[in-house]
């Protein structure tokens, strides 16, 4: 079946078409408004607040997507992110999806944004997920550990108590004069740095739960800069501090994830979200899974699916259809605080 995915939960307006067949999903085409020439698509109407101008971007984006085929492709269903996120942003996607589902007379399914990240590693992947599975979702806005007993069965076992891991990368990058957003900048600067140069805390690492905290690490980086009189324009200092910061973030994420995977005896470890584009985290997870979790399959998304996109929403929608995990379109509403639970 062909599914149109729509994602507007925060900054990005994104649409995609996927083909779901025999239990797996293949991307046919995916578009993200910020990555294409939106001026050309909307006829030049791009206000300064373009980042969240979903209203002006969504319909032209759907037309552009469907225009990629000489004959309009048949669409069997629509999947839309209805939460969590920013209410005003979510509403644009949800109402557009409802209108299209009504006009085309096709079923509509709601998808949780976190669930989208969770299925991002299943795009263009024919191997099925073996359950139980543990998912680490780690991005600029989220840091969560979710246990899955099957498709559509979710249990939140841990989350950040304050800042998300991606936010810690971004804000420490700002302190080091590397700009915002700074995840990729920190990871680049870290390449030449010494991970042991500065002693930074590993927040909540020794607590017997699966929660995270990154706010204290951010403050520790600030104190390091202040106490050691590090100049932001000193490349060696920024490199070493980047490497030390990244090592702290990666260690906490990896340790707690591996510990949870062992405790719940999972067969698959799934990772999703913008922070899994970070090579140090990818390498550390791969090494630890090999060493400590023999037989466990590690599913990492392709880098292009790590940031917010609609391909992952359509993919998650496909699995919701497979398990008949659907509610009436009239009941689908933008829900900014939607918690992904059973």
């Amino acid at each position: 079946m062909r599914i149109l995915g729509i994602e507007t939960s925060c900054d990005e307006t994104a649409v995609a078409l996927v083909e779901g067949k025999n239990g797996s999903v293949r991307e046919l085409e995916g578009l993200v408004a910020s990555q294409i020439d939106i001026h050309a698509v909307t006829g030049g109407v791009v206000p300064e607040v373009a980042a969240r101008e979903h209203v002006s971007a969504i319909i032209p984006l759907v037309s552009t997507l469907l225009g990629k085929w000489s004959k309009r492709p048949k669409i069997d269903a629509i999947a839309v992110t209805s939460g969590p996120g920013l209410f005003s942003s979510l509403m644009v996607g949800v109402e557009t999806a409802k209108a299209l589902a009504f006009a085309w007379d096709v079923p509509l399914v709601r998808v949780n944004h976190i669930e989208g990240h969770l299925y991002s590693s299943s795009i263009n992947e024919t191997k099925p997920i073996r359950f139980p599975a543990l998912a680490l979702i780690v991005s600029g806005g989220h840091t969560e550990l979710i246990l899955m007993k099957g498709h559509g069965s979710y249990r939140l076992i841990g989350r950040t108590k304050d800042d998300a891991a991606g936010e810690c990368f971004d804000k420490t990058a700002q302190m080091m004069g590397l700009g915002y957003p700074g995840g990729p900048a920190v990871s680049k600067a870290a390449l030449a740095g010494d991970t042991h140069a500065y002693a930074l805390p590993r927040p909540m690492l020794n607590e017997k739960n699966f929660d995270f905290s990154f706010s204290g690490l951010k403050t520790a980086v600030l104190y390091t800069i202040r106490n050691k009189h590090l100049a932001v324009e000193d490349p060696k200092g920024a490199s070493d501090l980047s490497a030390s910061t990244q090592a702290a973030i990666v260690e906490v994420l990896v340790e707690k994830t591996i510990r949870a995977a062992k405790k719940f005896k999972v067969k698959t470890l799934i990772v999703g979200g913008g922070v899994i584009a970070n090579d140090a985290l990818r390498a550390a997870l791969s090494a630890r899974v090999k060493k400590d979790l023999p037989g466990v399959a590690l599913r990492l998304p392709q880098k292009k699916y790590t940031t917010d996109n609609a391909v992952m929403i359509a993919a998650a929608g496909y699995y919701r259809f497979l398990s008949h995990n659907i509610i009436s379109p009239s009941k689908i509403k933008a829900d900014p605080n939607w918690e992904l639970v059973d």
Partner: protein
Amino acid sequence: MNSFALAVARTLHGGETLALTGELGAGKTAFVKGLAKALGIKQVVQSPTFLLMKCYPIGKNQEPRTNFQALCHVDAYRIKNERELLAIGLGEKIGDPGTVTAIEWADLVPELIPKNAIKIKFEHGAKENERTVTVTNNH
């Protein structure tokens, strides 16, 4: 920070804007976490930097009883233009008697801050766990 937040929570009637300022790590989010706790909000209050605005409902029968129904936690850190916050609906929250709005990095959006806002400035102290908090109330 929690006892300070509790003291602030006790003065709120609804419709107030709390304009929070201070550098990274100064305690703005920690203060709002404490405020939410003092208002009986059970949800985990996470940093709103990425989502820009998070609103937490306050139940009618929730303890302690309040005259308002929501706490909205806003963050101007990553926006480029004040209008971005109006575009996401902040204009309807500020001054709404059913809502208390706490805005982090309020100094970045001076035109959105009402004159009667309660201004709270957070500063790092001499010691690492020390913070200096200055409250200015023009009510």
